[in-house]
């Protein structure tokens, strides 16, 4: 993968609004933003109800993902173009999720909804009508999904990239600062994890930084190209964006997203936790 295959520009999307081989999909942190206006023809996926099991803390299973995409009119051969707010935070999560279930042709709109809005491009409240399809998903590709035991085993041996804000990493905040801070789990980070806040991947307008700048960002913190990498954050969405940058834009091999992230790790009994701005010892 590369920038040319994984990203499209707003101009490209405007030129392809009527292309039947493309499905635009909005996935937003604020699940109501689609309803106040969206890009023409775009469908909505709600990360809280469509993409998450409603009982267990896990994703919907293969059959449910197939039923979801079939009912929304997404076919296996469609080019899926995802966009969302907040630097494409949840759109990048959906990108990783589609990859997990084996969708082949998928792209992110660079800059997402924010860039589109700041450019004063057109939004509509018209809902698209799409014919149902018969979508077939693959078994989950676990080469891109990390679980807690792998994360504990990676302490001091693999690249662990904690993409939360510096104050969350150090233990001064427990959640992103647009959310209340009272939380159940302990504060801090996985020892030896390096803090590269997800926002450093993006420009203020939500577009991704240039490849050279991104390479320098990860080289500066000392990511070891010879080792596997696990990205984590609080609930696994911001780290999807960093997974996207490392794997899809920069072409690193063996990059996994730990979707359990700090809400799982910070609640585990008996695992090591580091506090403060330094990575800490294994």
């Amino acid at each position: 993968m590369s920038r040319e295959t994984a990203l499209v520009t707003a101009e490209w999307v405007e030129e392809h609004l009527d292309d039947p081989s493309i499905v635009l999909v909005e996935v937003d942190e604020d699940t109501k933003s689609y309803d106040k206006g969206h890009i023409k023809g775009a469908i909505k996926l709600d990360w809280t109800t469509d993409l998450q099991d409603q009982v267990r803390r896990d994703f919907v299973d293969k059959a449910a993902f197939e039923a979801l995409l079939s009912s929304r009119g997404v076919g296996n051969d469609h080019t899926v173009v995802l966009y969302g707010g907040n630097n494409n935070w949840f759109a990048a999560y959906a990108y990783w999720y589609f990859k997990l279930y084996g969708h082949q042709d998928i792209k992110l709109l660079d800059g997402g909804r924010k860039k589109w809005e700041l450019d004063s491009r057109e939004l509509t409240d018209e809902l698209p009508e799409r014919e149902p399809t018969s979508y077939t998903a693959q078994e989950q590709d676990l080469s891109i999904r990390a679980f807690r035991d792998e994360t504990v085993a990676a302490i001091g041996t693999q690249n662990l990239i904690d993409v939360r804000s510096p104050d969350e990493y150090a233990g001064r905040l427990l959640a992103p600062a647009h959310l209340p801070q009272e939380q159940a789990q302990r504060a801090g980070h996985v020892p030896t994890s390096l803090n590269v806040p997800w926002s450093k991947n993006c420009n203020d307008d939500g577009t991704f930084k240039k490849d050279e700048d991104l390479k320098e960002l990860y080289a500066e913190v000392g990511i070891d190209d010879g080792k596997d990498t696990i990205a984590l954050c609080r609930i696994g969405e911001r780290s999807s964006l960093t997974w996207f940058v490392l794997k899809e834009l920069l072409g690193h091999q063996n990059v996994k997203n730990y979707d359990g992230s700090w809400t799982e790790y910070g609640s585990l009994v008996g695992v090591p936790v580091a506090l403060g701005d330094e990575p800490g010892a294994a």
Partner: protein
Amino acid sequence: MCGATEGGLSLDGINVAKEAIIQGQVVRAGSNGQTDPVGNAYVRLLDRTGEFTAEVPTSATGHFRFFAGPGEWTLRTLAPKAEPVDTAVSAEVGAIREVAVQV
């Protein structure tokens, strides 16, 4: 739940005594010396080193809210057809800091 609701989360059911809240409204100069709320702006919260910590889209009435930690913060406001505006603000637990931003 992790939803950046437009304008920030409501304070319903939140123990504000345990939170360091920064909130306010984004406006732009209108006609006759009045100001109009900006409902399609993005407000970013930067920490004391200038690092991004969170971002919310403003509500239809231009409002936003953050649950920060105690200390010094900067709000960076982005709006269509306007230059970014930086506003310094300090927060403390148990207090609500009101900030007016004009773009």
